[in-house]
């Protein structure tokens, strides 16, 4: 039998873990149509049945306040999955059941997976699962997702409910004070289902003041009917509060005899850790230390792999050069263009894998929420939400991933501002260029301070740009911080693995094809017209065009040409410089040192770190904002900022020396 199962639940309850167990590698990530929210679907085959599992976004509620909630409820109402599998964290069952209550307002085909039973027990909770099932009226299956316990029974009962073999009889929520109002509105709606929405549910949403339902019904219903409905609503202004209370009363009754709470005043490990980690000052200092460690670890751990890959691609290039049966032009295009592009992508992979691995560990341990909490004050300066810190951190791996992760921000305004500021964070490609130049031009004892100064200047730019943009350009109200701090736990290997997997796939799908194509394009630009000397190629001529600009920041036409190719993909600038200045390996560094002063090198590095998002990032910005205006701004303002900053530093330093 083919069954569609919708997976619903609060964030942090282990929904992804369960989804991964059920679907393994048979999962597929796309976008919800027309939205920038991820849609994960997968297949689970069990005893002859095929379960199509749709992972709904993790939500606390089903209101119209956020895109995720709308998506979740629209899917259940319109697509009518055979069963909704609600994952509930047993260690915070009271709050978790609020979503279940709202799910039961929509459908009665619900199965509750009571996850983290081990954690609940450790916290001192005692849950009578059988009693709970009897009280709520739907199947309740205890599981421990991270140990894959209880899954079999869960799937069996899910199939039973979906196929109708097991009938659910959920206990109804009593809205006592509002019963009359609900009846009146239902009558006004004609007691009928409108566009798949049940009248009971519509009446409830109208009393709650749901903007989506309002909008939809206002258009749909005749004016006179709408006015009458409005009057009922105005007579029941406290309805939203009463409805929330009714749901919690339902929860209280369901839990009354079935939940034994632990004695109060127990200090947990989370409490102790949070005293330092969630403390505004100490927590922030520790956070900075952790970030520094992450960056150091990322480059240290990935280094051997990057070197190995580099060597491999060099050998491959040499072999192909000797063995490919093509003319030198085609060979050049294939080897120095396409293969070089592949090599660039390959060299980035180890860095990204390690970086996202560390991020995944932080995320699954529960620490990420503390990052948002501790950074909230700082983010406040730009009018941003604490959660915005996370995309900025991810951007240091790859801007594309950072921008795509702005989806976790609930306010559109926050998303936009974070997307615009994101490219100022140095990504691993830019950091590689920075590391290269620093090593080539500065003695060992100066290297760390120089690199730190680059990073500080980047952060300074983010700060300046953030303040200016939030004051003058991206207007809107700041949403106050309200996040859950989950209990600290040991990261789950499978979850972390899938996290890394998804982020890396994201990068490969978006960026890699681009980089390869762009690499070929750059090669063509620097080799056409055929046979022309370097400065007469298309690339060379473009570089010469920029000479007056280059003088501002102390760069010659070759460096400018490298900046042009650097737009297409950051890793290209080094390759271009090597072509234009001549030499490879040690010889390249020689020729660079002969062509530039350390100050000019500093200028070039600083400029390339800030001046423009790479082409893939620009495309991503456009895809996420769907606005030419904002994309154009995202290209223009960093350029302006980079020019002003670099020109000032270069010219000031020249004057002083």
């Amino acid at each position, binding site marked *: 039998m083919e069954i569609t199962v919708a997976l619903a639940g609060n964030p942090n309850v282990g929904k992804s873990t369960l989804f991964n167990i059920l679907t393994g590698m048979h999962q597929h990530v796309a976008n919800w149509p027309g939205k920038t929210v991820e849609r994960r679907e997968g297949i689970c085959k069990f005893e002859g049945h095929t379960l199509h599992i749709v992972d709904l976004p993790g939500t*606390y509620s089903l209101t119209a306040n956020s895109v995720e909630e709308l998506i979740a409820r629209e899917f259940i109402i319109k697509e009518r999955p055979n069963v909704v599998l609600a994952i509930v964290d047993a260690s*915070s069952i*009271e*709050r978790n059941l609020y979503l279940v209550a709202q799910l039961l307002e929509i459908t009665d085909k619900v199965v509750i997976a009571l996850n983290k039973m081990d954690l609940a027990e450790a916290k001192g909770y005692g849950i009578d699962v059988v009693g709970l099932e009897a009280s709520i009226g739907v199947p309740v299956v205890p599981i421990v997702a991270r140990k894959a316990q209880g899954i079999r029974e869960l799937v069996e009962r899910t199939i039973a409910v979906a196929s109708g073999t097991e009938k659910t009889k959920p206990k109804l929520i009593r809205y006592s004070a509002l019963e009359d109002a609900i009846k009146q509105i239902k009558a006004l709606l004609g007691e009928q289902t409108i566009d798949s929405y049940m009248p009971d549910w519509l009446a409830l949403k109208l009393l709650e003041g749901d903007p989506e339902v309002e909008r939809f019904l206002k258009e749909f219903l005749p004016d006179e009917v709408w006015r009458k409905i409005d009057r009922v609503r105005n007579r029941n202004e406290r309805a*939203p509060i009463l409805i*929330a209370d009714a749901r919690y009363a339902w929860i209280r009754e369901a839990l009354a005899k079935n939940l034994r709470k632990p004695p109060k005043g127990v200090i947990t490990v989370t*409490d102790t850790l949070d005293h330092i980690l969630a403390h505004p000052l100490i927590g922030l200092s520790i956070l900075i230390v952790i970030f520094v460690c992450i960056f150091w670890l990322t480059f240290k751990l990935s280094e051997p792999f990057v070197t190995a890959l580099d060597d491999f691609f060099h050998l491959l290039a040499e072999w192909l050069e000797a063995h490919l049966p093509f003319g030198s032009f085609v060979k050049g295009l294939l080897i120095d263009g396409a293969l070089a592009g592949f090599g660039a992508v390959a060299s980035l992979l180890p860095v990204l894998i390690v970086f996202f691995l560390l991020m995944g560990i932080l995320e699954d341990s529960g620490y990420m929420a503390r990052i948002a909490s501790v950074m909230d004050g700082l983010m406040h300066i730009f009018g941003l939400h604490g959660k915005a810190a996370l995309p900025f951190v991810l951007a240091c791996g790859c801007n594309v991933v950072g921008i795509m992760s702005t989806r976790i921000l609930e306010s559109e305004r926050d998303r936009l501002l974070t997307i615009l500021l994101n490219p100022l964070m140095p990504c691993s490609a830019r950091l590689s260029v920075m590391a290269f130049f620093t090593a080539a031009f500065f003695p060992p004892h100066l290297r760390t301070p120089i690199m730190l100064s680059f990073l500080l200047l980047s952060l300074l730019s983010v700060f300046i740009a953030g303040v200016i943009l939030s004051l003058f350009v991206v207007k809107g109200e700041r949403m106050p911080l309200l*996040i859950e*701090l989950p209990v600290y736990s040991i990261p789950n290997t499978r979850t972390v693995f899938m996290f890394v997997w998804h982020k890396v796939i994201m990068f490969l799908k978006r960026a890699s094809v681009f980089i390869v194509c762009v690499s070929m394009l750059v090669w063509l630009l620097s080799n056409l017209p055929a046979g022309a000397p370097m400065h007469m190629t298309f690339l060379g001529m473009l570089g010469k065009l920029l000479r007056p600009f280059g003088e501002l920041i102390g760069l010659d036409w070759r460096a400018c040409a490298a900046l042009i190719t650097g737009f297409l993909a950051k890793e290209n600038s080094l390759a271009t410089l090597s072509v234009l200045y001549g030499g490879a390996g040690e010889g390249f560094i020689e020729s660079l040192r002969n062509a530039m002063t350390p100050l000019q090198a500093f200028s070039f590095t600083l400029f390339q770190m800030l001046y423009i998002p790479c082409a893939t990032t620009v495309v991503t910005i456009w895809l996420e904002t769907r606005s030419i205006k904002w994309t154009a701004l995202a290209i223009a303002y960093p350029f302006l900022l980079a020019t002003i900053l670099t020109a000032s530093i270069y010219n000031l330093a020249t004057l002083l020396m």
Partner: protein
Amino acid sequence: MDESKEEECILPLSELPEGSRGIVHATYGGRGMLARLSAMGLTVGTEVTVVQNPFVGPVVVDVRGVRLAIGRGMATRIMVCVKQDK
């Protein structure tokens, strides 16, 4: 005069010392904020325990068995009835 042993005090959440416990008395805010707070477990009549309240930054509370970090601005608009033993 009969001085009661316990005195009830209604204060904004942002002003409660660490370790204090009380019942949510009222929340001031738009419908959106109320809905968010309800969904997270913070409704009028709920017991709330203050876990951390530093001089700056979010207030950390325990509500319905869940730990929440609440921005200071929002915390000033959540009124809590605290029982103080004399």
